[in-house]
C-alpha cells in the first residue's frame, strides 16, 4: 500500500470500530521505548550508527506480519514530503519530533495503522499501539507480544537494576507510556475537571488537553497518561490508570445526566446551535469547529440525534487539521483558505450522514 492511498484514506481502520466505553473514551494508546544495546542514542549518534538501527529494522521487519498486524511497511522520513509527514503527525502515527529528524529516521506502520514503530526518534525504537475505546489490559498484552517478537531479533539495552534504558531519564524502567483519550464535555462545562486534576496528578498520572496548546483542551478532549516509569510494574501502572479513567467515566456520565435533567432546554439549544453552525457555516476556525463538534457529539450521546454516527467527532477532528485539509484540496492553503475548506468538509461530511 502506498503512502498516498493511506493518507487518502485519512481515517485509520481501527478508528472506525467501536471499543468499550466508546461514548466517552475515544482511544487507548500504549507506547514502549526501547534501545539497541551497543548503538549510541540518537541525540549523540553519528548517522552511520543510526543506519545500523534503521537497516536492522528494515531487514527484519519491513513487509513482515505479526498476528493481526500485517503488512508492516517502513517509511524513511527523508523520502517523505513535508505535507505527508504532517499528515502522519495528525494521525498520531509519528510525533512532531520525528518529523524534524533527518538522520536515518523513519516509521514502520501496520496496514490497519494500529501499530506504528518510530525509528531513531529520541530512542531507537518507540513502539506504539492504538485501540478504540478503553482497552488498557488488551493493549498492554498485545504490546508485550510485539515487544517479545521484536526482541527475538534485537538486543535491547536493559539493566537489571534500572530496567529498559532510555535516552531521557523520564522514560527509564518500563519505557511505558499508557494514555487514554477522553471526551469530557460535561465535566468541562460544569468546571469539575479542574478540581479533579490535582488529585489525579498525585497518583503519578497527567491530564493534558488534546489538540490544543498547553493545558487548554480543544474540543473537550483530554489525554490521561502515566508519568512514572521506574519502580512500578507495567500492570500496576495500567491498573492505576484504569481506575482513574473509570472514575472519570462515572463522573462524566453523572454530570451528563445532571445536565440533561437540570438544563435540558439550554443544553439542547447549545447542541443544536452548534449543529447549525457546522451544517451551514462557510468559514470556520479550528477552535470553533472543535467546540461545535464536541457539542454535536454530546448531543448524539445523550440521544438528540438518531441519524448521526458517533464516529463523526473523531473523524472530523482528524480531517479538519491543516495537513488533511490541504491533502483534500490537493494544494497548499493559507490559514484563511483552510477555514473555508474546513467548513466545506464538515458540511459535506454531515450531508453524507443524512443521505
Amino acid at each position, binding site marked *: 500500500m502506498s503512502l498516498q492511498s493511506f493518507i487518502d484514506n485519512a481515517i485509520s481502520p481501527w478508528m472506525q470500530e467501536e471499543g468499550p466505553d466508546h461514548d466517552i473514551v475515544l482511544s487507548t494508546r500504549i507506547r514502549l521505548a526501547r534501545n539497541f544495546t551497543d548503538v549510541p542514542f540518537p541525540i549523540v549518534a553519528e548517522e552511520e550508527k543510526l543506519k545500523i538501527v534503521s537497516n536492522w529494522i528494515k531487514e527484519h521487519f519491513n513487509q513482515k506480519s505479526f498476528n493481526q498486524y500485517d503488512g508492516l511497511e517502513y517509511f524513511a522520513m527523508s523520502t517523505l514530503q513535508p505535507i505527508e509527514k504532517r499528515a502522519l503527525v495528525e494521525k498520531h502515527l509519528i510525533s512532531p519530533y520525528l518529523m524534524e529528524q533527518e538522520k536515518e529516521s523513519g516509521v514502520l506502520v501496520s496496514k490497519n495503522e494500529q501499530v506504528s514503530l518510530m525509528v531513531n526518534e529520541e530512542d531507537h525504537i518507540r513502539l506504539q499501539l492504538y485501540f478504540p475505546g478503553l482497552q488498557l489490559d488488551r493493549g498492554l498484552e498485545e504490546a508485550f507480544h510485539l515487544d517479545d517478537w521484536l526482541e527475538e531479533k534485537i538486543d535491547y539495552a536493559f539493566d537489571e537494576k*534500572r530496567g529498559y534504558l532510555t535516552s531521557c*531519564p523520564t522514560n527509564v524502567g518500563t519505557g511505558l507510556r499508557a494514555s487514554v483519550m477522553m471526551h469530557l464535555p460535561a465535566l468541562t462545562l460544569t468546571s469539575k475537571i479542574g478540581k479533579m486534576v490535582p488529585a489525579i496528578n498525585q497518583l503519578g498520572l497527567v491530564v493534558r488537553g488534546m489538540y490544543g496548546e498547553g493545558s487548554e483542551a480543544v474540543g473537550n478532549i483530554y489525554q490521561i497518561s502515566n508519568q512514572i516509569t521506574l519502580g512500578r510494574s507495567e500492570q500496576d501502572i495500567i491498573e492505576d490508570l484504569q481506575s482513574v479513567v473509570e472514575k472519570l467515566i462515572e463522573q462524566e456520565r453523572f454530570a451528563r445526566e445532571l445536565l440533561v435533567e437540570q438544563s435540558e432546554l439550554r443544553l439542547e439549544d447549545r447542541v443544536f446551535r452548534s449543529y447549525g453552525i457546522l451544517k451551514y457555516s462557510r468559514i470556520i476556525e479550528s477552535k470553533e469547529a472543535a467546540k461545535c463538534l464536541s457539542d454535536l457529539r454530546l448531543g448524539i450521546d445523550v440521544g438528540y440525534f438518531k441519524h448521526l454516527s458517533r464516529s463523526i467527532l473523531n473523524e472530523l477532528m482528524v480531517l479538519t487539521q491543516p495537513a488533511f485539509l490541504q491533502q483534500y484540496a490537493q494544494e497548499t492553503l493559507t490559514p484563511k483558505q483552510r477555514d473555508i475548506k474546513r467548513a466545506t468538509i464538515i458540511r459535506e461530511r454531515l450531508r453524507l450522514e443524512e443521505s
Partner: protein
Amino acid sequence: MECEVCHENPATLHLTNYINGQKTELHVCQKCAMEKGYIESKDDAYTIHDLLSGLFSFNSNLSKQPGINKSNQSELTCPHCKMTYHQFAKVGKFGCAHCYKTFEDHLNPIFRRVHSGNTEHSGKIPKRQHVYLQQKRLIQDYRNQLKILIDEENFEEAAKLRDRIKALESGESSSDSNEEE
C-alpha cells in the same frame, strides 16, 4: 474580530482584566501577544528538561562539597559515547546505554525525584536475552510465597515450593516433573 494592536491578523487571544471592579478587555493576535509579552513563545516555555537540569545542577552542587575532587567530577566522561557529566546535566538526556554505568553514582537522586522516590526497575524483562534473570525473579517470587506459607503454617505446600526452588536453582527448567503434584 481583528487584532487591536496591529489590525491585520485575527485576534486569537482574549484577555479580560478586572482592576478595582473595572473590567477591561483586550483582543490581540498571537504575534502581538508575544511581542507585548502577554504570552511566551514556544521556545521560552518551561520544559521538562529545564526542570531536569535544575535537578542535575542540584546534584552537582552536592559534589562540590569539600572532600570531593571537583576536577575529577567535571571530567567524568562516558567511554562509549564521550558524553561528559556536564553535557548530560545540560541536555538532561543520556548519550548511550553505558552512560547509566558511567554516571551511576549521581543517578539515584535524579530518578527519585522524577519517579516518585523509585530508583529500581520492577517490571518486564526481555524474554530472550534474560532467561536467567527471569529465573532469578521467579525464584525470588517463590521465596516470598514460601515465607507466607510458612507464616501460615501451611508446611505441606511450603515443602513442595521449596523443592521447586531447589530444582530451579540447580538449573533445571521449571517444566515437567516440577509442575506435577
